[in-house]
């Protein structure tokens, strides 16, 4: 066991734990009627800094801190270029959903994305499809992150996988269950700050260890000149493929429920304006630093063949052990902040969209409270048990979680907000087309190489757009009147 690394990590976990508990006490004071809004949306009172950080932290997951830099290590600067397409998420999501989403969500009194879709489209199938997609895909995504978190703890501390998973699960579960969305958002803010500082320290450490940027670049060129081109180590990283990541990890992020729901949680347009600026800066800094670290690590420690290990290995190599422990809290923070957001989102979908919609619409406040805490805890425990010995189905479903959800939700959300002729037929067609074609193209690409040389997500997003427009226009309905709905009056 490597105690010098473990102690800072443990201190970090304890701090997060107490911040989560502390922020939950504020929620306890809220009167009964607002319990759901408070538990699942933090009472819609996030300020600019917390909003920006919780968006970035929710979005930045194991892949931005372990997988992405690991690929940059293998591919060189081309992959850093690709990763920089993510800056757009820092401002795009909030600008697009923006004020209209905030206003409409308040008018509908929507607490979840499904609430919003239900009020806008007034359709049972839309509710069922969207709730099912969220529960199935995000549940698997959560389990995958959970596994990543435990593997990280395992590799850093030398603990067994099961012990690592247990520690990781307990620390997240308790504060999410007790504290709800507010605890998630506030801990996300702290975790986001840890990520920013951690990446800066590590980048500085790597540059110093490599003898300066010029030196590192020269080493890279003498090993393989392709590493400093935009085309990847083998020269086969195509323009179209890299550009298509602008959809997957850039503009398509608008369709991710865990991100979209944050766009209804802020207090005022002032917080939104601040969050736009902070979010752009923070996303850019994190993505640029982490992926540069991945590339720069190559001459310092050559020959790492498991991508996910690049960051832990380089941190322990170039930094003193105690500092490595602090820096490695960053990927841990990234994983925790993604897991906690997914957990509260899936729980809100089960409680608000399934339980209160279909099972017990007249539940008392007490029953709702019990259900909310209970569902959150039970979901967490199920994920924990599944992650102990992950079934293949889970791993399989996780493959579709990111792109599949984008293809399913982007148009029902965006067109629902801005196109008055959008209707339920379009929304249903769009969701089915999006998920269906995503799965089909995933298999096609796996067998035959990328269709048209672009990432799997590209065509489903286009197809679901076409399906949305065609079905909305064929099944003619009168234009939706955004003004007609007054506060709390759901169509």
């Amino acid at each position: 066991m490597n105690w010098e690394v473990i102690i800072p990590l443990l201190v970090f976990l304890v701090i997060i734990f107490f911040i989560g508990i502390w922020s939950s006490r504020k929620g306890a004071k809220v009167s009964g009627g607002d319990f759901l809004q408070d538990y699942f949306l933090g009472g819609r009172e996030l300020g600019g800094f917390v909003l920006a950080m919780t968006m970035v932290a929710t979005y930045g997951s194991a892949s931005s801190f372990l997988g992405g830099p690991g690929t940059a290590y293998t591919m060189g600067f081309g992959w850093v270029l690709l990763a920089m397409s993510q800056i757009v998420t820092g401002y795009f999501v909030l600008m697009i959903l923006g004020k209209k989403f905030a206003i409409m969500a308040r008018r509908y009194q929507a607490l979840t994305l499904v609430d919003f879709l239900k009020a806008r489209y007034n359709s049972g199938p839309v509710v069922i499809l969207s709730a099912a997609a969220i529960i199935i895909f995000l549940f698997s995504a959560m389990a995958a992150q959970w596994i990543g978190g435990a593997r990280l703890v395992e590799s850093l501390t030398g603990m067994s996988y099961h012990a690592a998973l247990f520690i990781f699960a307990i620390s997240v579960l308790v504060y999410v269950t007790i504290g709800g969305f507010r605890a998630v958002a506030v801990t996300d803010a702290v975790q986001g700050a840890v990520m920013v500082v951690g990446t800066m320290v590590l980048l500085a450490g790597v540059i110093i260890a490599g003898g300066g940027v010029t030196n590192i670049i020269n080493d890279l060129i003498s090993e393989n000149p392709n590493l400093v081109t935009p085309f990847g180590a083998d020269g086969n990283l195509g323009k179209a493929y890299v550009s298509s990541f602008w959809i997957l990890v850039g503009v398509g992020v608008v369709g991710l429920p865990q991100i979209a729901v944050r766009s209804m949680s802020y207090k005022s347009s002032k917080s939104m304006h601040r969050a736009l600026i902070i979010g752009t800066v923070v996303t850019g800094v994190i993505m640029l630093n982490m992926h540069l670290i991945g590339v720069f690590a190559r001459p310092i420690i050559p020959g790492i063949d498991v991508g996910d290990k690049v960051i832990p290995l380089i941190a322990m190599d170039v930094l003193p052990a105690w500092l490595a422990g602090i820096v490695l809290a960053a990927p841990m923070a990234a994983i925790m902040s993604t897991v906690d957001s997914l957990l509260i989102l899936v729980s809100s979908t089960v409680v608000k969209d399934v339980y209160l919609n279909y099972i017990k619409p007249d539940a008392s406040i007490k029953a709702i409270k019990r259900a909310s805490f209970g569902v959150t805890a039970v979901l967490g425990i199920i994920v924990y048990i599944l992650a102990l010995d992950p079934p293949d189905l889970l791993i399989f479903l996780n493959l579709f979680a990111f792109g599949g959800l984008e293809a399913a939700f982007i148009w029902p959300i965006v067109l629902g907000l801005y196109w008055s002729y959008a209707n339920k037929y379009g929304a249903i067609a769009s969701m089915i087309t999006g998920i269906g074609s995503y799965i089909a193209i995933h298999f096609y690409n796996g067998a035959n190489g990328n269709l048209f040389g672009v990432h799997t997500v590209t065509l489903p997003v286009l197809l679901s757009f076409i399906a949305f427009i065609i079905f909305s226009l064929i099944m003619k309905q009168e234009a939706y009147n955004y003004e007609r709905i007054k506060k709390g009056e759901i169509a």
Partner: protein
Amino acid sequence: MENKDKTDWRFKVANREALIGCGLALLNFVWWFGFAYGMGSRPVEEYSYILGMPDWFFYSCVVGFLLITALVIFVVKVFFKEVPFEEEEELR
């Protein structure tokens, strides 16, 4: 149902800002793509280096990031309007 052309003024603000968002994203993409593949397609021997980094990368990703941050700040300060989110009758 009220008069149809009495669109909520806040929606006009929201629509305009969403369009600005699309514009920024498009500009961001063109800058990123143009420098990366415009300059990066030369043979490696012809690259020059700025702060140690290959020039195409420096302009596309580092300058691009700073530029877009500056633009976001500018756009938010100059064009974005503050609007109330609660319904107006409640504010009065």
